[in-house]
């Protein structure tokens, strides 16, 4: 196990930034901590790095305890590499000296070799004599990554690494960073508030809220089977319909769907808009489809969001490619084509219908 956090807590004044977190990172794993701003995710990262000391709980890095129960290892001795939101490149040093900064205790030929290899890995060997201010945003980020990777740390921590890049660059860089991290076979923990980033990059996503990890699972799990209403909404749009569960299935206005067996009775059925399909003509899916009337449409180019009113008066949204074009008043057939999740009904946590 590369990193293990057990019952970690951290308060600032009266507010608990981290309120009891357990988290494990297996070797070579890429984990994203996803949460809204102020949820404590950056504090979590800084606790692992050693820039903050936990009030309770223990942290181990590479099997060695670094914080908690009387142990304290200074950040410079933790074998972690950190990539900062603003990159924190040393402005007075060239790219190669930035990358070699953490290698000052190595022999000079080893230092040279590691610097070169890491620069090659991030594809910046030809920019090694530049100063940080001469680089583009994406290049700076790769230098920051190279600098963190060069001392071959146990784990690389990335704090919102893409937030200061513009949207068009972001997707490209995401792929690039993922490739580099996979190639370096390093364990990495990424902190982000961007759902797309977490889902597309990580092996595992830990969703965090108010200092607590709400759910920890693969991207497919947290998106497709969120553990509660909050996680459901935080990860994307969702339709919530009342339903009745029994015997491993749930019955609602849009049909009967299989769910985990432990739920029974009144539940909330959660369906993502892209799982709601629309069609025209006579019952394309036989008795699995229901009738509805289009009442609104938002067109986004690559997709469209169509609002359909069911006979009961309940409205559901359907996300599909931008074709065919639906108009308000169109009579359509509605059916579910995709995963369905059911959650215990929690009045306090209900989305208003």
């Amino acid at each position, binding site marked *: 196990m590369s990193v293990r956090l057990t019952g970690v807590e951290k308060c600032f004044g009266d507010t608990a930034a981290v309120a009891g977190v357990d988290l494990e990172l297996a070797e070579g794993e890429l984990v994203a901590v996803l949460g809204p701003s102020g949820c404590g995710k950056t504090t979590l990262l800084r606790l692992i790095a*050693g820039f903050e000391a936990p009030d309770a709980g223990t942290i181990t890095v590479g099997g060695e305890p670094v914080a908690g129960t009387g142990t304290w290892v200074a950040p*410079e001795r933790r074998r972690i590499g950190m990539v900062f939101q603003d990159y924190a490149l*040393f402005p007075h040093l060239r790219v190669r000296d930035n990358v070699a*900064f*953490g290698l000052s205790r190595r022999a000079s030929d080893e230092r040279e070799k590691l610097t070169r290899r890491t620069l090659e890995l991030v594809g910046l060997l030809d920019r090694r004599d530049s100063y940080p201010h001469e680089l583009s945003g994406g290049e700076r980020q790769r230098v920051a990554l190279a*600098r963190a990777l060069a001392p071959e740390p146990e784990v690389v921590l990335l704090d919102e690494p893409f937030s200061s890049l513009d949207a068009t660059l972001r997707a490209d860089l995401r792929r690039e960073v993922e490739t580099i991290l996979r190639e370096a076979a390093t364990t990495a923990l990424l902190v982000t508030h961007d759902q797309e980033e977490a889902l597309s990059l990580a092996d595992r996503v830990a969703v965090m809220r108010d200092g607590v990890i709400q759910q920890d699972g693969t991207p497919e799990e947290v998106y497709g089977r969120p553990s509660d209403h909050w996680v459901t909404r935080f990860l994307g749009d969702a339709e919530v319909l009342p339903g009745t569960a029994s015997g491993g299935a749930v019955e609602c206005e849009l049909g009967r769907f299989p769910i985990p067996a432990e739920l029974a009775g009144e539940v909330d059925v959660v369906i993502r808009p892209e799982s709601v399909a629309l069609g025209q003509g006579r019952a394309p899916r036989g008795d699995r489809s229901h009738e509805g009337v289009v009442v609104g449409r938002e067109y986004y180019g690559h997709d469209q969001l169509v609002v359909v009113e069911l006979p009961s008066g309940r409205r559901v949204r359907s996300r599909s490619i931008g074709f065919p074009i639906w108009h308000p008043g169109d009579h359509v057939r509605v059916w579910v084509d995709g995963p369905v999740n059911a959650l215990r009904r929690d009045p306090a946590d209900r989305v208003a219908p």
Partner: protein
Amino acid sequence: MTILVAVAVAGPLIVLPASFVASPGALSDFSGLLPNALEETLVLLVGVGAGTLVLGTGLAALVSFCDFPGRRWIEWALVLPLAMPGYVFTLFALGASDRVGLSITTVRSSLGAVAIFTLVLYPYVYLLARAAFLSQAGDLLEAARGLGMSRGQAILRIAVPLARPAIVGGVALALMETLADFGTVNLLGMQTFTNAIYKVWFGAFDRDAALQLGTMLMTITLLLLALERFSRGRARYGQGGGRAAEAPVRLRGMAAAAAVAGPLLLVSAVVLAPLAQLGVWSVDSIRDGLLAPEFGTAARNSLLLAGMSIALEVGVALLLAYGRRASSSRTSAAAVRVATIGYGLPGSVVAVAVIVPLGWLDHRLDDTAGVGLLLTGTVIGLFVAYTVRFLALAFQSVDTGLERVPRSLDEAARGLGSDRLDVLARVHVPLIAPALLTAGLLVFTEVMKELPATLLLRPLGGDTLAIAVWQATTESLYETAALPALLIVLVGLIPVGVLIRLSRRVAP
């Protein structure tokens, strides 16, 4: 750590008010001095306040709102008097007064003192007012014009009131310098507080009375300091930002000639003429063998004191700034404020304050180790006084420099295996080198021209250039005073030059 520094640096100042408790009646022997000191100090404050206010604000308005040939040069030439210590200008005024048809008695009067202080101190008001004028939102003036005001009216009724916090701050700084001054008032025979402290100290050796006079002077200074802080606090709100003021009025004909001639005449009178005169006297003194025999020692002492002060004060400032960076709590912020309070205080007050605890320590040390008067009898006392007095200067530069280094750089270095010392050596020092240099330069020139504390605390044979100037001038040996004075002014021009260069780079 910050608290420790604060206690060490500002701790001695506590003996000032404490002296009233220790010996309540000490001042009664000198009761004759007090009304005089109060009156003359008041006259000076009112006169210099009015003088710098009018001259500084007027010149700032001239270069901010008008355009005339050579404006860009004149704008900066007007800062040069900052390099002229009051006592050096007094030396020039006394020695050269007959050339311009002034009698010595005219110079040696309240009016003369007010004039001299106004001429060397107006740049404080000028610089702050000018900065305020330039940062004002141009559309405010344009709005006033649109409402039917002439340009002059708009400046008087909009621009000047908006710049009021800056102007008040500048006047407060000028007045604090006036209060702190010893050389000028002493040479002109003004019976102000600093002079009274000197008399009580050296004439009557009455430590308690000197401390109590110092306390009164400190109280007046702290009131001014509060005024300055208060006005600066307001300044943050007053600034409009936005785009720069409308194009300045292009002056033509006689107006342009006056706009060029006035400032040039001023700078010539305050800087160029004294420099030329000092140069001539210096040459005379070397040729005629009038140079004081101690000149070499004085020059060496000045250089050593100023040089070693750089290391000491930049070091302490770095410690202080670093401590605050490590824990930016309210206590450390308060500690910093306490540690840097000495900058506002007159050198003579600081000197009498530090000598009490040092003397006490000295006797304890002597009793136990028999080392003689290690602290008060040597330059160590001087260094302590300089640190109390000038730490704020060094700290301000170092702290501004350090604040500009993002904390994530510290953490990045820590994460890469550097301990705190390594971070300092490999990240901070290279990044704040210019700030360290500025801090050192400021300390160097301030110590070079420091007079009152040096006079009170110097060990035997510890004369400096500043003391040489003062001593020779009191004996009307103007030629003898010239060369050391010239050196002080030339060194003083360096930071003013740096200031001008830095500001020009920022200005469009």
